[in-house]
């Protein structure tokens, strides 16, 4: 079953690799992954959709929370959350289909972001199923190229972020410099 994981991550080199490593080490294939900065430029929000064995879902979340660069990993699969995906589509269609395409786009709430004599570029956001329906319909009008963003999700519940405070560095345990070659 697909699991939706939301992570708050330090924006550091290698952080993405560590997180995907938790999944790849267990042989899981990632269905979608999105990353972008949060309000704090030092932090990134990541949404991962992945097919995980139901008994191992908790284990995967725990392993992600163990990573030093992960501030919080939560399983949104069965939680109150909103999940959306964006799609960009180029559709090449004959002149006589143009009106019908625009009508179809209007029904789905898609916006036209480019128009040429070959056809249109369209933008649509929504739940994955809605995007898939749109793709199926637009196929009937001509050749299409599709790029999907992958899912982004936000929890609808306030979540307390527990961060570790700085730990004062203990007094140095200085070695006696005279004991060379002890």
């Amino acid at each position, binding site marked *: 079953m697909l699991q939706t994981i939301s992570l708050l991550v330090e924006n550091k080199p290698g952080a993405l690799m560590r997180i995907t490593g938790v999944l790849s080490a267990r042989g899981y294939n990632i269905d979608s992954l999105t990353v972008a900065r949060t309000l704090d430029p030092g932090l990134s929000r990541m949404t991962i959709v992945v097919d995980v064995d139901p008994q191992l879902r908790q284990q995967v979340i725990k392993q992600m*929370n163990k990573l*030093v660069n992960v501030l919080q990993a939560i399983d949104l699969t069965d939680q109150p959350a909103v999940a959306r995906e964006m799609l960009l589509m180029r559709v090449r269609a004959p002149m006589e289909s143009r009106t019908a395409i625009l009508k179809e786009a209007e029904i789905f709430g898609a916006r036209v972001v480019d128009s040429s004599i070959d056809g249109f570029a369209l933008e649509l956001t929504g739940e994955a199923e809605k995007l898939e329906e749109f793709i199926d319909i637009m196929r009937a009008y001509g050749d299409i190229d599709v790029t999907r963003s992958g899912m982004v999700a936000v929890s609808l519940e306030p979540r307390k972020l527990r961060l*570790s405070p700085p730990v*004062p560095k203990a007094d140095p*345990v*200085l070695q006696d410099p005279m004991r060379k070659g002890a």
Partner: protein
Amino acid sequence: MPNLMSGSQMLLECLMREGVECVFGYPGGVMLPLYDEMYEHPLRHVLVRHEENAAFAASGYAMATGKVGVCMATSGPGATNLVTGLVNALMDSIPIVAITGQVSTKLIGSDAFQEADTFGITRACTKHNYLVKSISDLPRIVHEAFYLASTGRRGPVLIDLPKDVLQAQAHYSPVSAIHLPGYKVYTDGHAGQIRRAAQMIWEAERPFVYAGGGIIASGAHDELRRLVELVDAPAVCTLMGLGGLPSSHPNFISMPGMHGSYAANMGMTNSDLLIALGVRFDDRVTGRLAAFAPHAKVIHVDIDPAEISKNRAADLPIVGDAKRVLQRLIKALEELAPEAASKKAEARRAWWQQIRAWQAEHPLVPEVSSTEIKPQHVMVEIDRISGGEAIICADVGQHQMWAAQFIRFNRPRLWINSGGLGSMGFGLPAAIGAQFACPDKLVFAVIGDGGFQMSIPELATIASNGLPVKIVVVNNGYLGMVRQWQQLFYNNRLCAVTLDCFPKAESLAAAYGFPGRTVDSPADLRPALEQAVSEPGPFLLDIKVSPEENVYPMVPAGGAIHEMILRPPQPVSVPK
């Protein structure tokens, strides 16, 4: 400017501030700026003969002391050779810091000479790792690495240091605090959970303590002993936990699991409350999980929340450091005693009778013969000399299991072996690390003839440092554990397990300039060990043991732990 330092100087300054006494390493091209700085630096550098052994020696050092062990290697092959030692430290939660050289930042990604993606390769082999891109990050990263390695669930941390960072100059100011907001260290445990645990323990009729490496790591051995005595429960220590409770303690029921004792496995299986302390329900302990301790509720104390209910669901989890949790648990237990204790006294007496009956029914008895040296006999003789006080560094295989079964440990940090990864070639370099850490202690490296031949180069390290390690090769001419499985589960089709060439111990040791001796009769066993121990320096003993001995009891892979093979199923013959 008084505080202007090179990256190399800064690294050494930080190591001194962390109290590092010695590092195990092997130099190379990109590490030259650092080694040049070490030329007149008080930090002791031990030159091993292979980088893998630098990681193992650092691990032996860490396991013998609880302090962070440090190893160093150059870029490329140096770093890749560390990998096995890093994974070993990850599996056994050993605090080590590995420092690797890297090609200059401008060359990274250009397939430069001796370049490897060490940061990428070691991501899954470490608790955390760093690639230092700027000298200004260096002090912070070094102190973070030591903090990460030595707190929470211990483990290996690697710092990859490009050559130009070692050569760069910058002002050094000491790091005043470690700030890792996403790194959570759980220590005390939940007070309510601890109270509930105390109630469960007093209410249990057949409690059983299952203690592991976490007891050693947190230094909770005194608390474990107090707990076991207070509730008068039988206790086992896992392979990684041996020494957590003295082997001579009357409540100690030896080791559980695949080669555990009958009483330990029957006790686990029939218990109604498992008090699991710093353990991870490893498959070598639990056997078939579905049949493991089927009647028991489980209290699981562990510092790593990801271990809770990973393999076996915990009825009462407590996330915390074993020492801190046990201190508070003992207090909670004492508050409820003695009224609580008396309620189940009858059932507890019956439980002990049952445990003692199992011990009497199938005790762990070493094989001893007057015509050939039984490997178990070797362990008994080492145990006699050790008296529970020597450091025993084992390699991996049959001898490791016999050592765990028959050598006693009165304290923690005396038993050093590769448990989770089961990495052959660990024993000898680990003994080097342990001997450096504890120069006045008697250190045995107890190794099979297979593992020994993986570590022969380190005889040079032992000789050149005059380390008085007593190397005991338990030589059966086979990769014994693999052969045992081929005999028992692969129709006795022995494939690639015969080690028919072994150097003559006297000559090999003499080549390195120390004494050695071959022993092939039981009568010579004790005098030979005594001779080895009485020598002031290193000694190599090659003990030719009966080649066909196997380790029992044994739980077949996938079997339940109460379904042990107690004796060889039929006289096992070795095809010629």
